[in-house]
């Protein structure tokens, strides 16, 4: 088993843990935590392929990770702002209780 395989397995495990969290938790912030984990697993994959993969462009992986980090930061900020706005409106962050549009 190579280092690449290990890192890929780690990234996959992290992604799946994040997925499980995003699927099972009902609190919006905890779902956001799961999504963050999934994003970071993707970052790890980028770096793994940069480090251990064939390299058409020497810095593709890091550049990708850099953009992904920036976007994740924006996503977290907007997501948390949304959650706070929802909380102010509905007094809850439980996703299933925010159901006013349901017929």
């Amino acid at each position, binding site marked *: 088993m190579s280092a690449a395989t290990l890192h890929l397995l780690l990234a996959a495990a992290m992604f799946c843990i994040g997925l499980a969290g995003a699927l099972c938790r009902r609190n919006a912030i905890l779902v956001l935590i799961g999504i963050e984990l999934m994003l970071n697993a993707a970052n790890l994959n980028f770096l793994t392929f940069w480090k*251990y993969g064939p390299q058409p462009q020497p810095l593709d992986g890091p550049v990708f990770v850099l953009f992904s980090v920036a976007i994740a930061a924006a996503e977290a900020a907007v997501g*948390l702002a949304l959650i706070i706005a929802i909380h102010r409106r509905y*007094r809850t962050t439980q996703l299933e209780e925010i159901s006013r549009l349901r017929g």
Partner: protein
Amino acid sequence: MPPEPVLSLAFAIVAGLVLGGSVAAVSCRNRVHAGLFLAVALVGLALVFLRMGAEFLGFIQILVYVGAVAVLIVFAILLTRGSDSAHERRSNAPGIGIGLAVLLWGVLAWGILHRSPGAIATPSPPPSMAVRDLGERLLREELLPLQTVGLLLTAALIGAALIALPEPGISPRPSGSHGSAGTETPPSSPT
């Protein structure tokens, strides 16, 4: 640099940090603990990056994720506190989500372990990631994406502030037995 063993103790430790932190982050019933464990997992991931020689990205990872995102998350947890019950109720069917995730991991692991060897088998030694090269790359070839990201961050900053501002027309719904916590708006900051 000496050839490192594939499964070194250091890797085991940081991988344990990442996986343990992740599992605890998604399974902890105490929400603040979940946020702190997220920080642990992200620090572990930064250590993985450092081990891979991506010094710059490892530091950026901690700067952004631990310094900003994790802190924002726990801050949001505190701001939205007091309205929900202290611990969230269990999901209706946690088994489905967990099962799906395990299944996915199985498929991915199978794919990773049985990939065609040619895809990765010839790891040419990666060039050391010089920050100067990264900067040159970002500001020459990736200038347009960089500007777009800058625009996105600015938009996110303004948008987050606007979303979190109290709406003038709508008074918050009368809370039940709980006090009105978290009507103050913190300035959200996407780093």
